[in-house]
């Protein structure tokens, strides 16, 4: 029941690749259903934003699952596996849990602490829920991730940083324009932070928002959200004449806005000032643009340095958040291990019952002169022997399921002692057993004694 995250983000792949892997929201249910037909898939969830495309899955076999998910992406988007291998990262099991929590808490975002990713994760989860491609594992994982994100937001000041960055942008805009009513804003590209900044501007009186994006559908989606107009990406330089505030976050690896373009625009708009915010990394607006009169260009670092929280305390908050995530990953893994105990208990019961039945049958078949009462008595006796014998191990296992910490050892030892896996041990168990064999008996005895 391994958790796997396969995907790419602004950290691992350029926008060109990310865009190719994009799953538009309307196609998600269909994609999810298709993915479920692949071997080893038990549950799946697809998160597709402008900064990341990720598949969260619970699979019956990790290696197979990883391979099948990659194959699905390759099939779905008609891309060669070679291209994918380079761009995709894979987080199995505990790493996957950790990654999920980090994404939800916005520790993996371009701007630390921005809240939008959590909403996007929730939306993706809703779609998967409706499509019925998630169940116990992913439901628990995502719900936990959401609560971790909320914890990070309330217990650290990470989110304040992101919020104050966009309010810094608003403050600067006010220093340039005075009032923002009637100002035109253009969103060029669509990043989490760009949307956040746009929302802040809207909250401060801006009415007209234009959205230009390489994929026009996405632009339309966003424009609808802001009650604005979508324009084709090729046309944005012409529309620039009307723009007072430009928020740029295309994610392109080159300058989308050149000095020459801006000089021309300024002439056309008779030097009415433009405030440009470049949130992209790498930058999308040529820094030379700042030299044009009446243009004020700020990138994310400039904005960040305007925020009261200094760099040091911000990284401290991030550290705090990381610690929180680590802690939560631990709790989650304990829960998951607890889940492991249930099948072990079932396996153990089945195995012992199997032995009992076989041995009883063997004995009974060799003793022909027994009456029904005697047979029943023997059956009951064997059952009570088995139950008495199993009582202590089952209690320990149930405790292990509920408690945390060394439970994985308990379950592993139980499986080994009763030979439940027929030599097929999972690697993680082998490792722990080697380390723990010496001290384990003492510990189980301790637990046994506690039970009585």
């Amino acid at each position, binding site marked *: 029941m391994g958790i796997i995250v396969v995907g790419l983000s602004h950290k691992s792949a350029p926008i060109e690749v990310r865009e190719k892997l994009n799953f538009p929201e309307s196609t998600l249910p269909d994609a999810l259903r298709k993915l479920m037909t692949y071997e080893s898939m038990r549950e799946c969830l697809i998160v597709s934003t402008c900064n990341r495309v990720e598949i969260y899955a619970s699979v019956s076999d990790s290696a197979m699952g990883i391979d099948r998910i990659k194959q699905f992406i390759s099939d779905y988007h008609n891309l060669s596996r070679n291209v994918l291998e380079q761009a995709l990262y894979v987080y199995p099991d505990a790493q996957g849990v950790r990654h999920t929590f980090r994404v939800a808490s916005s520790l993996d975002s371009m701007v630390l602490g921005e809240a939008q990713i959590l909403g996007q994760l929730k939306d993706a989860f809703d779609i998967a829920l409706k499509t019925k491609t998630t169940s116990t594992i992913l439901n628990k994982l995502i719900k936990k991730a959401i609560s971790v994100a909320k914890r990070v937001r309330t217990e650290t000041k990470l989110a304040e940083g992101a919020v104050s960055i966009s309010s810094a942008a608003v403050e600067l805009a006010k*220093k340039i324009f005075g009032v923002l009513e009637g100002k035109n804003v253009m969103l060029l590209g669509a990043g989490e932070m760009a949307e956040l900044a746009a929302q802040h501007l809207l909250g401060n009186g801006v009415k007209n928002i234009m959205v230009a994006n390489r994929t026009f559908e996405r632009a339309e989606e966003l424009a609808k959200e802001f009650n604005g107009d979508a324009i084709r990406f090729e046309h944005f330089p012409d529309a620039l004449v009307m723009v007072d505030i430009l928020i740029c976050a295309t994610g392109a690896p080159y300058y989308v806005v050149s000095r020459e373009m801006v000089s021309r625009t300024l002439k056309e708009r008779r030097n009415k000032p433009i405030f440009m915010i470049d949130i992209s990394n790498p930058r999308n607006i040529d820094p030379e643009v700042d030299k044009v*009169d009446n243009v004020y260009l700020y990138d994310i670092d400039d904005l960040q340095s305007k925020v009261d929280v200094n760099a040091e305390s911000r990284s401290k908050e991030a550290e705090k958040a990381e610690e929180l995530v680590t802690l939560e990953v631990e709790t989650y893994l304990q829960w998951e291990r607890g889940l492991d105990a249930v099948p072990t208990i079932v396996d153990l019961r089945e195995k012992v019952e199997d032995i009992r039945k076989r041995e009883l049958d063997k004995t009974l078949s060799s003793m022909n002169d027994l009456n029904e009462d005697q047979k029943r008595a023997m059956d009951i006796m064997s059952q009570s022997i088995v139950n008495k014998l199993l009582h202590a191990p089952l209690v320990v296992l149930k405790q292990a399921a509920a408690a945390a910490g060394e439970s994985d050892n308990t379950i592993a030892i139980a499986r080994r002692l009763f030979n439940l896996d027929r030599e097929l041990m999972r690697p993680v168990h082998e490792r722990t057993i080697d380390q723990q064999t010496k001290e384990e008996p003492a510990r189980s005895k301790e637990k046994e004694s506690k039970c009585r």
Partner: protein
Amino acid sequence: MNLLFFQAATVAYLLAAVGYVVYIFKPSHKWTGEAAFWATLAGFLCHICYFAFRWSESGRIPITGFFEAINFLGMGMIFVFLIMEFRYKIAALGSFMLPIVVILMIPVFLLSGDIKELNPILKSGWLGIHTSFAVLGDAAFAFACIISVMYLVQERQLKAKHLGAIFHRLPSLDIMDTLSYKALTLGWPLFTLGMITGSIWANSAWGTYWSWDPKETWSLITWVIYLVLLHLRTIGWRGRKMAVLSIVGFLFVLLSFFVVSRVNIGKHTF
């Protein structure tokens, strides 16, 4: 006795200037801005009293001679400032305006305030009209210049991405750009009226409208500079360049006021 009002006004302006400077550099001391405003208002009332006393004493509007002209200019600037403060609530304006007014007043403070006898040939209703228009035009240009300085300070900070304490006190670029433009559109017609009335007055006194007196020539240059400035604005010049030009224009006004009027022998020498 009436000089006491003048001194009181100057002291009040000085206190206000200190208050406003503290206000702009120390964001935590907000009250200093308000205190400075009341000091300015008190100073202005003293100033008006002084002006009225001097008027009644000399029997003519006291805008002749260097002392009176500067005095009137300072009063005009404070008047413009109070209106702007009332209308736009830009306390930071005081941080720039008041020190300049104080700098204007200090030399006057040291000069003789004696009332001089006026050449009888100039005694005419045009005296008050011509000088009022001219000095009010200058006051408007001074205001535009100060706003432009503020604009440049803010523009520099925005461009350098280094926002000092001042930054939080300054109004937006857009407001400053607009105000400076408004001041110019007000100042230029006043200045023009000053020139026209002056020339009518000259005709009634000397029988000639224009005599290429150094002050006249210099004023004509100043007038043309501001005309060009306004024209450039209408064809789309804005922001930094306009601010710089407006400051340059005012330098000509200052030169005219302090140098041309003093060193050249002409009709305007006072």
